[in-house]
């Protein structure tokens, strides 16, 4: 598992990367009430805004962590945005991306580095 400074987690599953937000991020956001997902098949570039999540407090963007193609999105989240709070690290993944340059993953933190990052 890799982590970004934007509090996303990235899990490699075969030739795709699954993306979600960390428990820490979901706690900071508060109750999530709205999730907007990208469409499968979209080509994205690193740092492009691909999802919007809104909590009771505010809206936040989720950025594409790497270049690639969105191959699958977690459609049930749209109807059950609260899953982002209940199960952020497993069930509430947002999208799967097929990297065009897998070496971009090397830039990200491992679990220990992320723990240090959030203090």
């Amino acid at each position: 598992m890799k982590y970004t400074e934007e509090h996303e987690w990235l899990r490699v599953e075969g030739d795709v990367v699954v993306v979600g937000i960390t428990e820490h991020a979901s706690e900071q956001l508060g109750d999530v009430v709205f999730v907007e997902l990208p469409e499968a098949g979209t080509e994205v570039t690193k740092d492009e805004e691909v999802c919007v999540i809104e909590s009771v407090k505010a809206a936040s963007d989720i950025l594409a962590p790497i270049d690639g193609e969105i191959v699958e999105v977690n459609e049930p989240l749209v109807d059950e945005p609260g899953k982002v709070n209940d199960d952020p690290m497993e069930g509430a993944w947002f999208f799967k991306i097929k990297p065009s340059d897998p070496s971009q993953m090397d830039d990200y933190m491992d679990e220990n580095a992320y723990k240090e990052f959030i203090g």
Partner: protein
Amino acid sequence: MGELKRTPLYDLHVELGAKMVGFAGYDMPVQYPLGVMKEHLHCRGAAGLFDVSHMGQVALRAESYEAAAKAFETLVPQDVIGLGAGRQRYGFFTNDAGGIEDDLMFANRGDHLFVVVNAACKEGDIARMTAALSPEVTVEEITDRALVALQGPAAETALARLNPAVVDMAFMDFAEVELDGVACWVSRSGYTGEDGYEISIPEADAEGICRKLLAMEEVEGIGLGARDSLRLEGGLCLYGNDIDDSTSPIEAALTWAIQKVRRADGDRAGGFPGADRIFGDLAEGVARKRVGLAPTGRAPMRAGTQLFAAAEGGEPIGEVTSGGFGPTYEGPVAMGYVGTAQAVVGTEIFGEVRGKRMPVTVAKMPLVPANFKR
């Protein structure tokens, strides 16, 4: 920014695990560990306790209640003289342009007038009252009392354990009630759309009474986050968002709060700042109006969202002034100003969210029906 002030309940909030934020110069609980959504639902389902000690509590004294009321009527378009002893009423200070300087609650306490004003406006309000009304009226800010709200369908059951007399209070009654041996000023009112009470407590006794209430099965502490979503579902204005010094009470759909006796054909017509503008608005109508808004989709439409008559083209017809997610409504809720042509319940308009126009319906306020004890 100066150091944040603390209410008499600060230590209790911290002990309860509240997340504290700066609000109107005070360090206030925005949420407790329960979280905004569950706090909101708990308040509508049972009872919630809110610290609102940051608000201004002011006593206006003159030779009689009537004298204080008569003076106060020069600042507000409400019927103050005609308010019965032991009764409370909603009102607002107007300015010469007919805008709203602050909204407030006032009560007839028999020999004087008691006013509760918004935290962010209280300095200005007190200066305004002092400048306009003294020396005939003494304007005394009460700084040694906490103010809490107990709101929700179980508020009566909970507060009755401290004094059963509160059961007999009707909506907008105001009384001095002994709670746990302490003389408290209690009104049957609030800012959630639920039945409930607002309770002014001597600061030394506030924590003890709050602990007694919080120990009850029905009662949870509720932060400013849920206070906002509750009042939004309840269609209640937040000063600074939904009303301000540029909105007339008629535009703000607060005509109901200007009693007939103060209107153009009333016995005590006018005599408050901006009466000409407000009477003009009443007689000729207004170009924009505050309305409830129910977005069709799931995306919240927050304050500042521009509103349009059509899905494409055209200039904005208005703007959302408060918006978010309504936990009881189970969807996004908002309020804002639209042109009079669109200010008809059921009209479909569009709000621009992240560059996309999303449908939103003009809705009857409150979006969640009120549950007052009449």
